[in-house]
């Protein structure tokens, strides 16, 4: 059996298990949604819910069908590429999610663009100079930043840069963006607030992975052979640390899609996280399920990609 065939089968196995996980998640989300109590008809009518009005509205939303039937209908639709219509707005779910998903991906992408290079550079430098002043400063700074909640960083940043200095807008409205300069202005504060947290996490995990590799016996052997420090880090230690680093990056980035509700609220940025919160609050189950699928899928894509990168980057595999 050749190495490449083995790798292909390994990767195919990872993807298959990711798809199966997605199916399990959809079942779990549906089961949990049944435990939430209340339905979209009650959420819409609120205080004015009389039994008669509730029954009428439920029938018009097909909420009177048994739960498994509703789940199967949704699943079959999804497999055909149609997640159905929202119970609350009556609009197609695909059309509701698409623009918000694009917004979320833009925000996550810009944050990744800023945070990954910064984190890798600082993390590797801290590992190389471990024990030194630089390492200690970076360590304390990352611990400090990671301990401050996002909403505080965002609110303080708005107070300084928008309210007091008037340099940047307090809200991130994509409506008036027509140049790269405007785009940078609009995204400066949310990206900065998000990057603070993700960078700090990534730095710590990168540093740990590189430190690990640097203390291994083969790096020791290379150093004794007289390999210059730069080649030692980039050529010998780093390739072995790529797997763990890719995992760290994937985990940090996965939080950027669904876990940024605070940032979306503070900057009034219409992303998928707020859509999910709205959907849960109004018990709009088809929407909840579809958005949950997107969150899980993106998480699985990132983690599976990290897995595959780790497999491909494994020197032992290359030399088999």
């Amino acid at each position, binding site marked *: 059996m050749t190495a490449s065939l083995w790798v292909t089968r390994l990767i195919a196995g990872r993807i298959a298990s990711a798809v199966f996980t997605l199916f399990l998640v959809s079942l779990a989300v549906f089961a949990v949604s049944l435990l939430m109590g209340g339905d979209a*008809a009650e*959420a*819409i*009518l*609120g*205080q*004015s819910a*009389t039994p*008669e*009005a*509730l*029954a*009428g*509205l439920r*029938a*018009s939303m097909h909420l009177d069908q048994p739960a498994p039937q509703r789940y199967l209908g949704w699943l079959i639709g999804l497999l055909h590429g149609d997640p159905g219509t*929202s119970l*609350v*707005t009556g*609009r197609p779910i695909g059309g*509701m999610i698409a623009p918000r998903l694009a917004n979320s991906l833009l925000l996550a992408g810009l944050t990744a663009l800023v945070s990954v290079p910064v984190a890798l550079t600082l993390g590797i430098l801290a590992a190389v100079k471990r024990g030194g002043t630089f390492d200690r400063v970076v360590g304390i700074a990352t611990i400090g930043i990671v301990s401050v909640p996002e*909403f505080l960083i965002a*609110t303080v940043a*708005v*107070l300084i840069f*928008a*309210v007091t200095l*008037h340099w940047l*807008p*307090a*809200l991130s409205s994509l409506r008036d963006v027509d140049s790269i300069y405007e785009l940078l202005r609009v995204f400066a504060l949310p990206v900065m607030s998000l990057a603070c947290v993700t960078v700090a996490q990534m730095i710590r995990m990168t540093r740990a992975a590189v430190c690990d590799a640097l203390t291994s016996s083969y790096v020791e052997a290379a150093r004794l052979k007289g390999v210059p420090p730069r080649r030692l880090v980039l050529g010998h230690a780093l390739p072995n640390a790529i797997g763990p680093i890719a995992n760290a990056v994937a985990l940090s980035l996965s939080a950027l899609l669904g876990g940024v509700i605070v940032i979306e*609220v*503070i*900057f*009034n940025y*219409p992303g998928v996280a*707020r*859509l999910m*919160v*709205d*959907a849960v*609050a*109004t018990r*709009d189950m088809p*929407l909840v399920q579809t958005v949950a699928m997107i969150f899980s899928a993106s998480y699985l894509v990132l983690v599976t990609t990290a897995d595959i990168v780790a497999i491909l980057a494994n020197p032992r595999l290359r030399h088999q």
Partner: protein
Amino acid sequence: MIGTLAPHGVAPDGMAHGIDRRGLLRVAGAGVLSAGLAGCGLPVARTPIKGGRLRVATATSSTADTLDPAKQGIATDYCRGAMFYDGLTVIDEHSRPQMALAEAIETRDAREWTIKLRPGVRFHDGTALTARDVVYSLRRHLDPAVGSKARVFAQQMTEVRAIGTDQVRITLSGPNADLPIILAIPHFLIVRADTTDFRLANGTGPFRCREFDPGIRSVGVRNDDYWGTHAHLGEVEIFSIADDSARVNALMSGDIDLINEINPRIINQLKRAGFGVLESPSGGYTDLVIRVDQGHGRHPDFVTAMKLLMNRETMRDAIFRGYAKIANDQPIPPSSPYFNPTVPKRPFDPERAGFLFRKAGLAGATIPIVTSTAANKSDDIAVVMQDAARHAGIKFDIRRVPADGYWTSSWMKVPVGFGNVNARPTPDIIFTQFFSSTAPWNESGWKDARFDRLLLLARGDTDESRRRQIYGEMQQMVHDHSGIGIPLFVSSLDAYGPKVRGLRPMPGAGLMGYRFASHVWLDGA
């Protein structure tokens, strides 16, 4: 965006186009001079300017946002509705109904009503308003599949039919002289006949709906073919920022012009920074609810004593920073034309309360009180009362319960707790919903046959002075006997940027009763 610079209402015709800013000031000055002589003088700075884009951020918005008047449920919905649609009537600053799409409303017995429609009104799509549209708009509330929040009010309309194209006949199940006010309820805004798709609004209102994205934002542009007084603003953008401090920050950074639901604590800071605050006294309240059909509440002396423990001035100043009006344990606010000023004010009197507690055999007793953030500020109100209770010789055991599920599991079920009631447009509605013996939300379980008779009597009476007298007596009855303690009427608080002009308080709700878009203008727009 800069619209046509035309000082509204005072510039001579034909001078609106092509004048520069200096010219505008001259014209405005001259206009004011003549207007001043005519007896309706406005200072120069207050001359409305046409055009400009107003950006408004409210506290709530979600995918449940709607352009369907029947389903409206939050301030953001009502603001949008008021921009895009009109009702048959509208409530003015004195809580009186004024004609809007209706030109005249007539009745002989308060049961059969004839509504004559205003001629020459057009929907945004160009079709003319007819009786059929009105019949459709009113009747659809009866269909449970519509999910209307005004179904209770629509159910008394046993018949709604068109007479020709410009008249509508409404027959009620029983006489109700308040119909003109009920027709001004936001849910009864008029939509075009057979509308089932509410992705954009097709109304007759002062703004056209250019964009509506539920949970994201809506944009309205001025309707230049409007039948009534034209709006000044060229464009209004509404969205929401749920976080209180983020909303204030966005206002202070100049990103937005108008926000609602301000925490009273930051008002001084806003005013110092040059921002305006609009206080709208309303009829909304948080009330102490003592069940008179269970526990200590069965003893009238206990109920009275509890009401005497409320130090209303302290509550107003400490909890609401002065942005509330003292109430007198009955639900009709002083701004209502039916308010009865002769009901004696209940004082803060812990000594007399102590005497009454002893009389009820409760000296030294511990009273459990349930509070929740669901009933706005009930925690704080209970704490202020707890202090007074100590002087009256009893103890309060304050039990805070979570907001989630409060209305179904605690409200109206515990012997002593709190409720929260939004302003209602008429005494009839609030008495019917919260105080009559058969009311679904008769919070304290107080039942009085005479009260119920008076309610029906006033409802069917078209003589205003008689109604005022009956509602006056009913206020006294609630004040004396019901298990409800209403310490304060809480004001709505909005804040606005230095360029925003024309805002003034309206009864009922903040943001000028949700109708700010028709009245506001931007200085220097």
